[in-house]
């Protein structure tokens, strides 16, 4: 099987990487203890079963027996302990399970097949975090013989359906089938081993080149489909295309450190002036979906009710809000004025992705319709993030990607993240409290309810204005099977790609 990647992974160490493409490759090679099924439930992957204590401070895992690492060694509780200790020590994303965050303070291994996690405080979302591919298990002895920086650079050993073979940087990554793999979760209906004997992941950064390779039939399947070539691929009888919303979302944000946005009517005017459908059509060629809340439909905890409460496109309302706020006169350029000041805002975003650039241009046009002049200041990722963290902008278009709704919404909107990922630069005590509850409340219903209300308040605030949710587009040759099965899962996880796709 040959697949194509737009972006090259940085390094293949589950405990240290934060890159999406690294995680995709890693998910073929290394595995966490649990997996997430199509209904967003954590299910056993490397474990036979697990149980919580009454007080939710002890979590016991019974490991599956006979699970082999790629080096032939059997996985035991020692490997789990060593992997978790390394994960807590190194992972930049680990901010929930570890001892520093009041999570697992002790890992006991009473025998080879039992692991006991002792928590300092109850962590109701622990199972989701344990199912995260970053918390993958690697052999303790192998890890002990490696310097941290060498893992995923010099080699990689896991329990996954493919064995890491070689990586020619800038060109390809080659994985070989692990013949002993036999423990895929039940929902996949295929325990293993994988169907394809070899998986070649080619790095093809240029969209036009990827498109030519897909059309020529040199790529068996890819999720990195260049959107500008979608029609050509869809019309090609030798290819098949599948689509599903993903958890990658784009949003417009108002910088609340700018005085003008303290008047909610301005934010409401902007929210009503934005036509999401038009943005999806123009910037994403129609291959995306309008987004109504900040948490997308492919994310755990998504609340469909946001579709009802989101501010609808309504130019009259937008204009009315601006006039109520005192922006009543219009200069000869059509820009609204108040006390001799023009309603002129800067919008920052990334220049390196065509869709973001185009989305910024459409937002500029849409806001001009109500008399708001937007000056685009697009730059590459590093420079844009610098400005965002320094709060040096009025409006911004950003993107974020994570399948776990609660930590994701916390990153974007909780006040502890002002200066890092809360680009609204806004502290709202109610939202903070709700997010804390949605993370820590022991009562499942209360936790869910808190997360729903948090999503509603974020939309209602109009500080963050959701724009579009990306659609996962998969192009594959006609002789590639298993696509329907793969798309029965909301985010087509890489482990499932490894196990259900086959060539006829």
């Amino acid at each position: 099987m040959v697949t194509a990647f737009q972006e090259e992974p940085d390094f293949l160490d589950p405990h240290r990487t934060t890159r999406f493409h690294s995680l995709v490759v890693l998910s073929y090679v290394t595995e966490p203890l649990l997996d997430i099924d199509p209904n967003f439930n954590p299910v056993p992957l490397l474990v036979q079963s697990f149980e919580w204590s009454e007080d939710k401070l002890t979590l016991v895992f019974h490991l599956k027996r006979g699970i082999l690492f790629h080096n032939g060694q059997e996985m035991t509780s020692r490997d789990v302990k060593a992997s978790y200790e390394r994960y807590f020590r190194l992972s930049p994303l680990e901010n929930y399970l570890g001892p520093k965050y009041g999570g697992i303070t002790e890992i006991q291994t009473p025998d080879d097949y039992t692991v006991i996690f002792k928590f300092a405080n109850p962590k109701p979302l622990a199972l989701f975090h344990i199912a995260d591919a970053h918390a993958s298990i690697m052999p303790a002895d192998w890890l002990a013989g490696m310097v941290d920086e060498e893992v995923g650079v010099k080699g990689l050993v896991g329990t996954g359906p493919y064995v890491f073979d070689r990586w020619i940087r800038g060109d390809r990554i080659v994985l070989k089938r692990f013949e002993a793999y036999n423990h895929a979760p039940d929902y996949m209906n295929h325990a293993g081993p994988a169907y394809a004997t070899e998986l070649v992941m080619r790095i093809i950064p240029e969209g036009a080149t990827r498109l030519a390779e897909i059309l020529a039939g040199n790529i068996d399947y890819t999720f990195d489909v260049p959107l500008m070539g979608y029609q050509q691929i869809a019309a090609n009888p030798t290819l098949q295309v599948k689509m599903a919303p993903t958890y990658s979302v784009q949003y417009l944000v108002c910088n609340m450190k700018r005085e003008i946005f303290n008047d909610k009517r301005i934010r409401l005017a902007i929210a009503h002036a934005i036509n999401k459908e038009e943005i999806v059509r123009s910037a994403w060629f129609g291959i995306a979906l309008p987004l109504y809340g900040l948490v997308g439909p492919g994310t755990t905890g998504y609340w469909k009710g946001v579709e009802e409460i989101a501010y609808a496109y309504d130019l009259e309302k937008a204009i009315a809000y601006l006039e109520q706020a005192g922006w009543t006169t219009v200069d000869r350029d059509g820009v609204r004025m108040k006390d001799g000041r023009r309603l002129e805002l800067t919008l920052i975003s990334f220049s390196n992705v065509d869709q973001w650039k185009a989305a910024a241009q459409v937002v500029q046009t849409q806001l001009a319709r109500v008399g708001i002049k937007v000056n685009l200041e697009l730059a590459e990722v590093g420079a844009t993030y610098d400005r965002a963290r320094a709060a040096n902008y009025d409006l911004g278009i950003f993107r974020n990607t994570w399948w776990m709704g609660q930590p994701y919404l916390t990153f974007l909107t909780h006040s502890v993240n002002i200066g890092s990922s809360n680009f609204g630069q806004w502290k709202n005590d109610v939202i903070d409290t709700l997010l804390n509850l949605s993370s820590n409340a022991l009562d499942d219903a209360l936790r869910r309810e808190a997360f729903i209300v948090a999503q509603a308040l974020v939309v209602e605030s109009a500080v963050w204005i959701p724009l579009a949710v990306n659609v996962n587009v998969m192009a594959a040759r006609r002789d590639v099977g298993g696509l329907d099965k793969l798309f029965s899962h909301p985010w087509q996880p890489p482990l499932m790609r490894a196990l259900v796709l086959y060539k006829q």
Partner: protein
Amino acid sequence: MLVPTLVGVTAIVFSLMHVSGDPIRLLFGPNVSEEKVLEKRAELGLDKPIYVQYWNWLSQVVQGNLGLSIHVQDRVGRLILDRVGPTLELTIPALILTVAIAIPAGIISAMRPYTIIDNVSRLIALFWVSMPYFWLGIMLMMVFGLRLRILPISGRGGPLWTLAGLKSAILPVLTLGLPPIALFTRLTRSAMLEVMSEDYIRTARSKGVRETIVVVHHGFRNALLPVVTLLGLRLPWLFGGAVITETVFAWPGMGRLLVNAVMERDYPVVQGVVLFIAVLTVVANLVVDFAYVFIDPRIRYS
């Protein structure tokens, strides 16, 4: 001059790289807390003043260590060595192609100025130079890779001495080698026209020397100086790679390594590549200077 040049170039690049963008933020992405970012920054010494960071880097380099990439966590020296081979597989054949076509075409044009041969040669040269590398690459790919299916569309099939490697290099080599033909043709033509009107050429002809010898020995050798200068200027490019062509053809060369490192603010890699190219530039200039002596024995360096 080698040492001050290298220190100057690397110091300027190092300073410019620090103007904007945080390598740790770019490495970690947006969903990582400030605390973790600060920890990592301290671990890599990025919390120190720029001049201290530069001094630390320079001290390492003097000991033969180019450091560790922030972004891909591999040795910078190894990353450069892995990429320089594939780049040379493209740039050397491309340069040979350019010279092999441009110099004869320039000489022929000069020998038959303003004839149909000269006009056709100029037209063809203009045709290639008018094409952006990106567009030419895509067109070649579409015709030979997608339509005719006789050559691979992209990727490096292997080392150049293997059939797969050779086939995969043809389109990128053409993309790199064809556009500069115009420049070399025009330069050769004008240099030849100038030389061929010199008195010593008339003398040689009047002595009955064969026209081929007049053109090649007396004419071309004297017209070679500007061509060699231009070739010398292109030598660093041989190692620096060709970003656009490498990107279009998904070729794992130096150009892509450098651009990715700049985008990720991977200081050690950028510094390593810049140092590598700077050394080669200085060496290339030295080679050109020696070539002058060889071509024109009147030139002597004390």
